[in-house]
């Protein structure tokens, strides 16, 4: 394959990640069901995580582990390990936020008997 095709693939990955983020943002802002809002927020975070991992990728890179296989092998390119570590942290944080959000959704459902955001507005939105 020539390099322009690779470049196109690169932009494709970034574009997909940003598209996933935008889909999540759309879901969080437009959907009326509280559960769908939480799913939207979660999808948005996943899109961001995809983008971060894609940013750290190098063409033909292997896993960033210093081992005998890497030192003696022919492939001397590693992908950047920092974004992967960051994504791991971000996933855990996203999990925590989703858990708190779902517990709030349960509370709201018990209090109002509905998940429709239009019917839960004792406070001004």
């Amino acid at each position, binding site marked *: 394959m020539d390099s322009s095709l690779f470049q196109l693939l690169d932009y494709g990955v970034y574009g997909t990640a940003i598209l996933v983020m935008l889909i999540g*943002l759309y879901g969080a802002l437009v959907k009326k069901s509280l559960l769908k809002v939480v799913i939207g927020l979660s999808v948005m975070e996943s899109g961001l995580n995809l*983008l971060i991992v894609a*940013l750290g990728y190098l063409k033909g890179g292997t896993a960033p582990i210093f081992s005998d296989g890497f030192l003696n092998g022919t492939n001397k390119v590693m992908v950047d390990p920092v974004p992967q570590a*960051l994504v791991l*942290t971000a996933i855990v944080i996203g999990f925590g*936020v989703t858990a708190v959000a779902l517990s*709030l*959704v349960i509370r709201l459902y018990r209090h109002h008997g509905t998940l429709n955001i239009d019917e839960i507005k004792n406070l001004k939105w």
Partner: protein
Amino acid sequence: MVGTPVLFVAIPLLAAFLIPLLGMIWKELVRIVPGLVLIYLMVLSVNLLNHVLVNGPIVEVIAGWAPPFGINLVFSAFSGFLVTLMVFLGLIVWIYSYRFKRNVGFEPAKKYFLLLMMLVTGAVGIVLTGDIFNMFVFIEITGISGYALTAFYTGRDSAEASFKYLMLGSIASTLLLLAIMILYSQLGTLNMAEIATKIHTVKPAYKVISLILFITALGIEAEIFPLNGWAPDAYAEAPGPVGAAFAGIVVKASVYAIIRYIYTIFDISGAYDFLIIIGMVTLIIAEFAAIRQEKLKRMLAYSSIGQMGLVLVAFGFGTKEGVFAALFLMLNHAIIKSLLFLSGSYLVYNSKDKTIAEVNGMHKFLPITSFLFALGAFAIVGLPPFAGFWSKLSVLTAAADSHMLFVMSLILMVSVVELVYYLRVVNRIYFFKKEESVEAKKPTFNALIAMLVLGALILVIGFYPDVITGVIHKASADLMDKTKYINDVLSIKQ
């Protein structure tokens, strides 16, 4: 030396997770341990601040990875000043809620104190860290404990307020992480000092996009105008001491983050003017919204938003006087607004709708609380013998020094609005007849002590501002000196 900066993160975090276990041994430990931790941190931060003011900043390397590779904590005059302020307010909130939470039983008290510890950990971590991703993690810790504390009372609409806060907060965290990754993809580093040395090599487009994302994300936490939809509801629905903790701790940490990005990391001069503009818009809109509020705590929340706008305006001058005024204002706002939230929540304790109309004639039943509320109201408006006067005066002189007479006159005009809505409440407390239906709730002994300490501080700073201005002068000089920060951090070798 009695300790190192890492203890500010490690000890409250450890205590937070030990609290449920300690509660199994003796239930009272759940209430006592947070207090011991906060007292220790208070002693530690005062000691370290004294050390730092004389000997220069302490840069601590975590896990033996020297900057720029590892995470480092920076305890300088500026960050140390804010850490001391936050730990002090955490202590006040603890004293206030020690017995208050006895009424709600063991399980809720356990969760309350656990989350309070997490809140302090996160906020102090934001201020101390020298690594932008680490700051993101601390912002999330603060955020998650903030969502949970907002939803503390099950009876009210607190879950709704909390969900609103959570939604905006998690959009903010996504934008923040995106901004961090844009910087990382351009520079390959996450260390603040190293980014600051290399930022001029980044293309302007990337720089501006990432700064905009940073300000948007942090603006949600710092209650900047179009992004502060969560704040009035969260303040109104959360317990009183949590409102004080938000105003004194969480918002201060977020403003610190914005200021650190604009002053130290980025080199875009237009950002200062932008701060003045958003600060003024926030100030004006919030004060006019406050005058229309019927609920006491919502009014206080809008007033808090307005004060934060004023802080941003003062930072936006970009001069040494401006930074001094902004830090002084942050200190006064933390003390005075906490006092207003703590005393205000007793004034409307038993009333059904928590409206301003229901505080009528409370001074006969709650003389000390009413007096302290009035003291706080006069102080925050900026009447002369109180603490708020000096900070407002220094904001105005800083504006005059920067030849921004238009901004100066707007601030004075908005102050009149502020005076009107605070006097309206004080007038109702003192000169209206009490409604029969509302029963006054006597404050507990601990709550009285917490409020009296804050009230005394307002008077002390009001009569002798010199006790604190020396520290603030050094803190503002520390923030202005960007090259010293970079050298201090990057010269560390381990």
